[in-house]
């Protein structure tokens, strides 16, 4: 199956290892991956802040870049949801609107693609740990993908998943919200970290680099002994190979 990777700007700048894990997992599952070179950022920082025109520039760049793709797969529910928003963002331009719709229709979040398109629930990973999972808001509420990550994690050998209280509450990232509404965001991430601690997990698994950056940033700052990893890092772990 031919898959175009939309790596996300956050992964490309800060989490290259996550990006590499995504590539390796998908290849192992039989995908033929290409990386459209024109890709940059989905445009969400501008869009969510009210700068529609600047977001449109980013969107058009992405639509152009993925024009010939069969499937677009990205390790972020939030960036995938932004792709799904392109038809609304470009609704006043008939030509671009149709192309935006085509782009939106072939876009999948990483775990969603594995479970619903590849129809695979066990990727053969092994990762011994006591972990809990952060359900990202945009993945669950905008993409409406609620099952794929937990199905995949349930089949990771050695991984013991613990429930996370108030998992439906936002971690306080919200893109520019984290700095625009810094005092409120701080309270939100603090409560999230408290719930993670109370879960007694040693590892937090997230499926979105934005949430991950926020939660990990707070966990590290407050010196909690909890590891934070992207789900791709877990799914690419095989004890025989040593994983990442």
């Amino acid at each position, binding site marked *: 199956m031919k898959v175009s990777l939309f790596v996300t700007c956050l992964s490309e700048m800060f989490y290259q*290892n996550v990006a590499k894990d995504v590539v390796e997992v998908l290849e192992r599952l039989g995908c033929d991956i290409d990386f459209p070179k024109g890709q940059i950022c989905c445009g969400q920082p501008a869009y969510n802040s*009210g700068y529609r025109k600047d977001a449109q520039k980013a969107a058009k760049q992405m639509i152009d870049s993925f024009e010939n793709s069969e499937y677009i797969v990205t390790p972020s529910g939030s960036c995938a949801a932004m792709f799904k928003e392109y038809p609304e963002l470009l609704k006043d331009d008939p030509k671009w609107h149709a192309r935006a719709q085509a782009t939106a229709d072939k876009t999948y979040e990483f775990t969603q693609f594995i479970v619903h398109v590849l129809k695979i629930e066990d990727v053969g990973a092994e990762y011994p740990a006591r972990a809990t999972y952060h359900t990202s808001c945009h993945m669950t509420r905008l993409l409406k993908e609620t099952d794929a990550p937990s199905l995949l994690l349930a089949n990771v050998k050695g991984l013991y998943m613990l429930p996370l209280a108030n998992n439906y509450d936002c971690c306080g990232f919200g893109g520019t919200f984290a700095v625009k509404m810094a005092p409120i965001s701080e309270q939100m991430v603090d409560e999230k970290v408290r719930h993670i601690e109370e879960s007694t997990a040693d590892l937090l698994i997230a499926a979105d680099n934005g949430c991950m950056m926020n939660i990990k940033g707070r966990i590290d700052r407050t010196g909690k002994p909890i590891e934070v990893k992207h789900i791709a890092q877990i799914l690419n772990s095989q004890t025989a190979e040593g994983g990442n």
Partner: protein
Amino acid sequence: MAMKIGDKSFFGRVDDALQDDFMRQAMSSAQDRLRGKKQAATVEDELVGDWEEWRSAGEEIRQHTLDNLDFYLEQLSENFTKRGGHVYFAKTAEDATRYVQEVAKRKNAKNVTKAKSMVTEEIGLNEALEEIDCNVYETDLAEYILQIDDHDRPSHIVVPSLHKNKEQIRDTFRDKANYTGTEEPKQLAAFARAQLRETFMQADIGVTGCNFAVAQSGSISLVTNEGNANMVTTFPETQISIMGMERLVPTWEELDVMTNLLSRSAVGQKITTYVTNLTPQLVEDSVDAPKEFHLVILDAGRSNALGTEFQSALQCIRCAACVNVCPVYRHIGGHAYGSIYQGPIGAVLSPILGGYEEYGELPYASSLCAACTEACPVKIPLHELLIRHRENYVKDYGKTAEKMAMKTFGVGASSPLLFKMAVKGMPAAMKPFVKDDHIENGPGPMKLWTEVRDFPAPGKGNFRNWFDNRKKGGGAHD
């Protein structure tokens, strides 16, 4: 303006809220409790069947009503007038309060009892009546508590006194109403009940809001758990109901659906203890029928939203389901919004009714997590409307630095070459700030981030090079 709460800036109010440990504890435990109750009365109630179908029906009813608002308002007005009632269309809050004042003056009214009504909070009706020397008595327990506590303001549209605990209520009753009992809720309620019985008997005018008006019959439907709406509308000879111009349904069939959606979403009740449906009629020489009854239909900015991208905000039935799941409201409570309409719907509605100058910051008080949209029983796309507000706001009020930053973003996000240079140059640019693998004290806008959290250091190596190399048979990553 009566919709507004407090004079401090938004962040001033947020700071006050964040320091109020009791209030925050009350908000989060109320949210957690209400979530369970709502689940039990919606998705988990077998009698409900598919809750999503109910939401779709609610959305359809509200959209249909708004699309035909002129027709249904006329029908409502005709049917209300036909039985001897008076209908007044108020363009502004002032028009509405003036009308009520005139009725009160004409009737020589001294005592006015009120059932809970957010719209009368919105227009400042109590103050307007006090101005002409009427005694106004709130009869909803929560509103009563706020009123005797020196007119404290509501912090939640369904549970206005959510920010107070039983000990605080006991103290208020002691200080303001010579209460001598304990903080036991039953005792507190019994005390308030005894006080209110007296006032019900002496009322000259009864004022209610309106959960839904029924156009078909010209009726007013009110949901309460205390039965006070019945008392308010039974004793006095004169009744006045005040409604937002969008708060109506075509027929009783739709009322059934909407009442279900409202009580289940608001407090997780299958139905409220009382559903008071009023279809008043003038009857000669009757001691039961009212002598005079009025319906005030309020615009006060609502028509600003009609026919615009914000029309769906008028679908709102004031259940507060969005407030009850909002993670921002959870931490800052209601007063921080500075409007009697708080939480996500408050952040959408307040700028529509009161303008961006006063309420333009509220749409930013959301992480756009969309919990509100998911909870809304009439499917208002709340988080999307917050973005629409932001788009309007930045046009007139956007800060130059932010505009420049976003322009730069737009240019950078459409130029692969610039992006490549940025990715390549970033590790060197950030190097002075990097400690081990993270940044603890970032420059510029990053400072607000790194005051409370670490920021990741730019990754070493280049993903694109790695990918190309791999395609040529290169190895795994570290």
